[in-house]
């Protein structure tokens, strides 16, 4: 494991940086440098440093940790390493297996940002606007973390506890995210006031599980945490004619309304609570409509 440190001009302040090549070394570095902060793609981290809202004294940089890279697509599930970048999520077999994750990844930032930012970073940062989170929560994703005390697996819904808050302990690292595969279409729609490179005002992921004859929906940017919507899911499960895979306009609209009712959005400088709720109703309806249309 390589460690380095930098000094400011006067040598008074020291920033310690560990660049481990293995997960064990990363955990070791976290133990050795209490208070050390994890750095993955840096697309949130470095912005916060620039703004002065994050002042790390020690950093464990995860880019070189091979165990965090890559993904496995198995019969029943998909395992995605925490170090997988948005660019990697947006292409290849991973994209064809989880098309809504790919769609979400493709809405993130610019190509440069997508080459740097990671799934683990998105999950651990736990921003309400985290673009992969609505789909992951809809897919009942499990987050595997490892720390000094060993490994544990936490459902994403319990992993994220509030705005940028998680159950990740200071000595733990997100290792990967696992989702069960399900047969059927899935969609991710995101509203922003610019056609690219924009933080979500509202986003919706809809997954249609043809085998379970169930619909699952995840909402982003409209609550402190990525949120499911049981009432909309139940409504869709009943309202869809699973034989023909069809639903009435009214049923689709009702699905959108129920999704919007599950929101507790805020008004801020990016948008208003009313618009966020309205947008969720529209894009939830459109997402389900698109899923059904694509499946036929």
């Amino acid at each position, binding site marked *: 494991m390589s460690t380095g440190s930098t000094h400011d001009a006067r040598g008074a302040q020291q920033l310690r940086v560990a660049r481990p090549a293995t997960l064990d070394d990363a955990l070791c570095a976290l133990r050795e440098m209490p208070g050390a902060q994890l750095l993955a793609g840096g697309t949130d981290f470095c912005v916060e440093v620039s703004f002065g809202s994050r002042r790390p004294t020690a950093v464990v940089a995860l880019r070189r940790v091979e165990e965090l890279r890559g993904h496995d697509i198995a019969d029943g599930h998909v395992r995605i390493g925490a170090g997988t970048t948005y660019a990697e999520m947006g292409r290849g077999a991973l994209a064809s297996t989880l098309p809504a994750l790919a769609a979400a990844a*493709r809405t993130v930032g610019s190509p440069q940002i997508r080459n740097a930012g990671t799934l683990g970073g998105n999950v651990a940062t736990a921003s309400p606007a985290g673009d992969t989170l609505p789909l992951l929560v809809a897919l009942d994703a499990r987050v595997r973390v490892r720390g000094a005390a060993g490994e544990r697996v936490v459902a994403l819904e319990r992993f994220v506890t509030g705005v940028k808050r998680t159950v990740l302990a200071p000595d733990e690292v997100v290792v990967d995210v696992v989702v069960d595969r399900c047969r059927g279409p899935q969609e991710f729609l995101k509203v922003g006031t610019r056609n*690219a490179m924009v933080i979500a005002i509202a986003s919706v992921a809809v997954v249609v599980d043809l085998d379970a004859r169930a619909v699952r929906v995840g909402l982003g940017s409209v609550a402190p945490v990525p949120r499911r919507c049981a009432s909309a899911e139940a409504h869709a499960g009943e309202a869809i004619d699973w034989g023909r895979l069809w639903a009435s306009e009214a049923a689709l609209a009702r699905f959108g309304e129920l999704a919007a009712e599950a929101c507790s959005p805020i008004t801020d400088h990016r948008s208003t609570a009313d618009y966020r709720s309205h947008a969720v109703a529209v894009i939830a309806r459109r997402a389900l409509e698109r899923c059904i249309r694509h499946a036929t």
Partner: protein
Amino acid sequence: MKGTVLRSGRGTGEQAGSGIATLPGGLGTLPGGLGDSPDRPDGVQKVRGEFAFASDLWMDAMLWGKTLRSPHVAARVRAIDTSRAVAMPGVRAVLTAADVPGRPTFGLEVPDQPVFASDIVRYHGEPVAAVAADHPELARRAALAIEVDYEPMDAQCDPEAALHAPPIHPDGNLFRHLVIRHGDPSARGDVVVEGSYAVGMQDQAFLGPEAGLAVPGDDGGVDLYVATQWLHVDRAQIAASLGLPVERVRLYLAGVGGAFGGREDVSLQIHLCMLALRTGRPVKMVYARDESFFGHVHRHPARLWYRHHASRSGELVKVEARVVVDGGAYLSSSNAVISNAACFAPGPYRVPNALIDGYAVRTNNPPCGAMRGFGAVQVCFGHEAQMDKLAAALGMDPIELRRRNALTRGDRLVTGQVLTGAVPVREVIDAAVAHPLPPVPAPDAPMLARPGGAGATADASHVRRGVGFAVSFKNIAYSEGFDDYSSARLRLEAGLDGEPTATVTVATAEVGQGFVTLAQQIVRDELGVRRVVLAPASTVDVGSAGSSSASRQTWMSGGALQLACAVLRQELFGRAAELWECGSSQCTSTGSSVRRGDTGERLGIAELLARGPLETEQELHHRPTKALDPDGQGDAHLSFMFAAHRAVVDVDAELGLVRVVQMATGQDVGKALHPLQVQGQIEGGIAQGVGLAVMEEIVLTDGRVRNPSFTDYLLPTILDMPDVVASLVEEPEPGAPYGAKGVGEPPAISSGPAVLAAVRAATGLDLCRAPLRPEDICLGGHPA
């Protein structure tokens, strides 16, 4: 009249690529001369990332400066305790208002803005103190260690209310009330339409933040390297506040990463010089993006009310308007902005009767000043929406209504000024309309091309197309009697290899507009000298060039350089005449040599320079303009530029999302001296116009800036930028060097209003605020 069609595209297919036509003859046919599009001298460096911008300035042993700014919108400063900051090791100076050696205030028109707030802060982000330290992080911490005891006060953030509120500054809350009364104010038309409109606060958002390096001089003066728009006016303000004679304050232009008006006002200049003089060491300062949002003025937000009267046949009878612009806490150039807003309030139309009230008001919002379009942008949103309303009321085609009322040579403005120059309003309208409309995308076209873009929110069935039109005009150069001039120094000598070499020394701020290229073209064309070197711009070697603003430098600095060329050409003739022993009236120029008329003999410029270098400095003052009288009447302006824009938009009305598909434009340019740079100005200006129409706004809550970052102050990306199809209308402007008009501002004026018109057409909603917000379309809008 000639027309040149420029076409550019982001997409694929017919719109893509560029078929840039160069001028068919006309001006000089010399390669690299006028009318050609030679490469910029700084182009390769900029593209390769090797150009030194002001933020790259460096000097051994330099200190780093940092400004402490008010977190309050309005507060009394009860006490400032700098002792903790001063005591920090590595901190070399901590300065406040008490340390300003000269005039405590600065300002472009009137010095009403404190260098540092002393007793009262009047806006969020107002400078209170500055620090110089060994390291930028240390400077930042030292600034935070300064303890300021503020007593928050009630803020006045509404311009209408501020007009009647207690003064928030000794100079009062009304900067200027300008009334224009023209013709018969009691005239009435058969058809009357009325409307109210609003425009938000746009930022110039230049990509290179404010930066400079001040170096103390041996003479007690200071050398300042800085990115600015007008070196000499900065110098005057700095010297006054330093209490130094102007000769001891020397400014040098550092690499400028865009300006758009935002560098007209002093930002870090005085602070830097004070820190350098106090510490006796070089001091560098670079604003981060968030500080840049607080460190420069913005485009004035505006509220507009209009009532248009017309005859049944569609002739404008009268325009009534009330224009209120929010100048923020300090004056900056608000007086000139409201003058433009009032003068151009009717748009480029023949209006026999007018009653226009313009107010520029002081509030506790961030100071507003110059930005590309300068007062003409805001009112264009109003007058163009009114023209559409009027067309609807008359049952007329909106373009035909505009053509019918279009200004033409010999017409009077509402200020009484008779238009004597080129006024090709109908021509720019026709040129914009002549471009083919873009095809409607196929249902299976990529989602990226729909409103919502990467978010994939719209299916083809959710998208409605709209087409909108807008026309605008604006003045060139400074108005209302200002003695506007520019200086240029030119030296001709034989280079070491004997080749004639011209050195151009101008204080003209190259802010990206390409004056450096134009200067070379002018000298090549005028004197046939191919090697043209540009000396650094400074206050040391040459007189003022005026500001790189108001679309004026091609005319003003270009004209001064043309004068200098003419003087040196005469001197070359004189030398030739002496050798030939003939009168210099016998001499003519033939590119790179001088010809004797009666014998046909020739002498090369190189031979003539063998006797030594030639040098001159010339000043060009444009034709004097006049102040406006109490009725707002007078020949206040030098010349005018006209442009028309047709926007095609796709709208997802249910989500309120817009994609601008195409912008077609006809622009009056007089003469295109560098067609490629004209194209660059048109595309860049349209990007800013589109930005103001659909996303760019500094969001304020009770005077507090909510989005001082590029995360939240959204600028158009390439996916937001429409295809641009442009026609240049070339009708030489009498009195303008080479007949050329400025081209920088018009693309940013009517492009935004055209987008709003297109969205209104697509949705049927009466949208009257820019920028459009999604909720205005899908939740707040009401049918027109």
